[in-house]
């Protein structure tokens, strides 16, 4: 709400006295970052039309949930995890295995058990499963911090990917899982892309709300203190291991939710969506947008998705290079950002 009222007040100010507004806002990087990313997205969507906007919106919603969930761990608590893609994958595979109704007899690969569950029955299972795995992993991770934490979370990402690839009886390995169910409430089936986008945005709204409640609670304040000086806050009576474990599990559940939504949205998943590189991209997104800022994660995810989808329309680029060039640009952006604005576009905290 404060964003909306702020925007209205901003527009009024510009209309009243454009010159003084310009003088005061010239150096406001945060404002310009917001305007550029939002304006760019808006112009692009208007130019490419509804279908494009819906696709971009859906991809954005999934990445935004993922980015916010990781920001709780990295930005607020200061645990630099590069393994989050693992929980994303667990959520996605749980959804895919439970809801897929593909008849694999026609395919020349091994059959896997199909359950044909409805989406809304599988969704809580996906979320809880990601949370349970996070609980076990988190207990093991609790003794580590800083650079060692990066390494062990890296290890988790590799293990998760290898599991998705090699546990063929369950995941069909590199062949992936087809015909993941779309959500349905009674007779209302979210077949259309627009309906699905609406559903995604509802979930995104929920995640934003829950995250906001967490970071503005007493619990959230303790998380930032853990990030700043874990030993010091411990002396004041906080069992930091419990706090770290709690936010780790909550975050993993959100990532699992994002994964489940991805599986259903694309109706097909294979291990390629859960490689380590994706995890690194995710970390880049939250650093780009801004650590310890929910709005920053939304903005970062939007900028990333626009970069990813938008690059496709750059006329002079040969299409086979687009994927790589995207990563190059993201890399350059990150280097520039770390040099000139280490807190990210709208962040509150420098790594």
């Amino acid at each position: 709400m404060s964003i909306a009222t702020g925007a209205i007040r901003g527009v009024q100010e510009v209309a009243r006295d454009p010159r003084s507004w310009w003088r005061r806002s010239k150096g406001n990087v945060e404002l310009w970052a917001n305007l550029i990313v939002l304006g760019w997205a808006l112009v692009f969507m208007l130019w490419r039309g509804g279908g494009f906007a819906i696709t971009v919106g859906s991809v954005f919603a999934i990445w935004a949930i993922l980015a916010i969930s990781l920001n709780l761990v990295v930005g607020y608590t200061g645990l630099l995890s590069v393994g989050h893609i693992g929980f994303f994958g667990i959520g996605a595979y749980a959804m895919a295995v439970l809801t897929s109704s593909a008849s694999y007899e026609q395919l020349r690969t091994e059959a896997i058990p199909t359950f044909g569950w409805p989406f809304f029955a599988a969704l809580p299972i996906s979320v809880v499963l990601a949370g349970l795995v996070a609980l076990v992993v988190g207990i093991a991770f609790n003794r580590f911090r800083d650079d060692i934490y990066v390494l062990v979370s890296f290890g988790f990402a590799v293990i998760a990917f290898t599991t998705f690839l090699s546990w063929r009886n369950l995941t069909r390995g590199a062949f992936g899982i087809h015909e993941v169910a779309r959500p349905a409430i009674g007779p209302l089936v979210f077949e259309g892309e627009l309906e699905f986008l609406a559903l995604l945005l509802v979930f995104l709204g929920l995640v934003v709300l829950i995250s906001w409640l967490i970071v503005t609670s007493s619990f959230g304040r303790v998380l930032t203190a853990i990030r700043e000086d874990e030993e010091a806050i411990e002396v004041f009576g906080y069992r930091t291991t419990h706090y770290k474990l709690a936010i780790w599990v909550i975050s993993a559940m959100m990532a699992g939710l994002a994964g489940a939504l991805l599986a259903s949205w694309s109706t097909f998943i294979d291990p390629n969506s859960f490689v380590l590189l994706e995890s690194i991209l995710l970390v880049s997104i939250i650093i780009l947008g801004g650590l310890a800022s929910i709005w920053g994660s939304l903005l970062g995810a939007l900028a990333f998705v626009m970069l990813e989808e938008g690059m496709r329309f750059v006329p002079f680029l040969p299409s086979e290079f687009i994927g790589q060039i995207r990563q190059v640009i993201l890399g350059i952006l990150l280097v520039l950002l770390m040099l000139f604005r280490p807190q990210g576009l709208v962040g509150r905290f420098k790594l």
Partner: protein
Amino acid sequence: MSTEVDPRVYVLETREISKSFGAVKAIDQLTISILREWITCIVGPNGSGKSTLINLLSGLLPLDGGIVVVDNVGLRVVKAHDSPDHGITRTFQEVRLFDQISVWDNIMVVLTERRVFPALLERTKPNHKVEAERILKSVGMWEKRDAMAQDLSYGQRKLLEIGRAMAMDVQIYLFDEPFAGLFPRMLEQVKSILKEMREQKRSIVFVSHNMDIVRELSDHLFVLDSGALLAAGEVEEVLGRSAVIDAYLGN
């Protein structure tokens, strides 16, 4: 000595505690008793184990041996997160604030709920706000409440850290060099804070190298040397002993 303790007088005791870092004995079989509702000062040359002692008492370092007695209970293991339950809080020799959060949150964070799930549901409470405002005003940091802790000057940081300790409603306050690097006005401010805390029946332990302040403030004095107790007792008397003069004060 330790067999005739009167629990009404001693608030915190150590019995033959030790701590080594590799081959170096930082604290060597140290037995001291800290008086309730008094100001106790610990002095000693650099490396004599003063900070290590405070780190052991607050659970930041594990004991190698010996026991710490609080509330008539002997502890072989002191956990950092239990130290407020033992009635202990502290400041650090090198100021350790939560740098990238506001001055306000630096105080609020030690006032709020400790248990994980209630903390998740707890929003900012009015009584916590009142308390934080009182603390910030008493250390003269109320106007700075929205600044990030890292943007404060050294003296302000020192004061804020003392304020953060004051926000803890406990019996024993361990101040590790609260006067180091302060200019005179702030020095007076910290002195009056300590005196006021003594008025309020708190037990204070502080480390200092400033002999004028030690003479002015402390009721009781411990002199450490190489991790062992060199002398203990009333201030002027201890500082007059030749062993203390040789080890620490020079001529």
